[in-house]
């Protein structure tokens, strides 16, 4: 797990393999077998597979009521959205996705300490980068759909 001060502590008793430690390690010295950033990027490539103009949704695996996203959508569910790095999101846009959506990162559902706070920093940096490239609309961050919305569907 990642502590509030950014340090990393491993405790086998409480590890859920969320990947936050690997996502946060500056030297990328931590890896989770089968869940590396390269693996996530390969999954993104397979999902998009030359499909230009689609929406790629990175979905939080902890959130039960994911919001509905309109349009032509590919969804990649991750144990923690921290696994969808800035690099992965930019690569998806470079590979033809019209926009990327981070869906369901909600404090109330989060099982991982500080993941939401760390996620905010990731999103903020990604927004800054896309603003420079005049691609602000290519990034959408959605919370959780309300019970009512789920019922209507």
């Amino acid at each position, binding site marked *: 797990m990642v502590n509030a*001060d*950014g*340090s990393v502590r491993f405790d086998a008793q409480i590890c859920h393999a969320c990947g936050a430690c690997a996502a946060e390690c*500056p*030297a*990328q010295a931590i890896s989770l077998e089968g869940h590396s*950033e390269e693996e996530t990027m390969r999954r993104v490539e397979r999902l998009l597979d030359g499909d230009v103009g689609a929406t790629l949704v990175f979905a939080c695996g902890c959130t039960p009521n994911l919001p509905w996203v309109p349009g032509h959508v590919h969804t990649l569910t991750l144990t923690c959205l921290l696994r969808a*790095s*800035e*690099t992965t999101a*930019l*690569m998806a*846009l*470079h590979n033809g996705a019209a926009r990327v959506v981070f869906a369901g990162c909600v404090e109330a559902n989060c099982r991982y300490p500080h993941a939401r706070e760390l996620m905010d*920093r990731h999103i903020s940096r990604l927004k*800054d*980068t896309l603003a*420079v*490239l005049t*691609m602000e609309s290519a990034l959408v961050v959605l919370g959780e759909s309300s019970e009512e919305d789920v019922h209507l569907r």
Partner: protein
Amino acid sequence: MIVMRHKPLDEIRRMLSGWDRVLLVGCGTCATVALAGGEQEVATLAEALRLAASREGMTRVFDQRVLQRQCDPEFVEELVAGEFDAVLAMGCGAGVALISEMVDVPVFPACDTLFIGTSQGLGAWQAECSACARCVLGETGGICPVTRCAKGIMNGPCGGVKDGRCELGDRDCAWVLIHERLEHQGRGAILHEQDAPGDHSVKSTCPRWDVTEGGR
């Protein structure tokens, strides 16, 4: 460690305009810990530059590499830049300088080097040392007036201090901190012994250091 920050993406893009095959080179030491030029930052910047180029309908190559240390020839030797027409060095100024010396193509800096500092939690650092070649920390309670005083004065505080803050408004007054620290240690009196101005000539006469030969 040496602390640096990323230049704005716009500035990096302007520097690299006209160069179509660029090698981004990160540094596995200070730049990694400073979250400015490690594996992650190199990969993210390369991807942002690729995306920017494809949005402009241009075919440009941005390849990436992270050296263990950019300030040591032993590691920079590994760099093969032959197929690239420019290098973007994502380390401190020393890294940019050494890579420039060792490759034939132009090298551009992706970071602004700020200071030698200490970690203050995730993504935050305090400037502590300016490599002035004349360390006075023993007399100043370990707080560097050259680095942390806006004027770098050796006998402070000056008249610009108010409630312990520097008149610039962005920092605590280093000299108030020094007085407080020394008094806490029961050695406030040593401040009254200081009267000589700082010798700023040392740094300008020591551009190079060799353990065997001494400074030149």
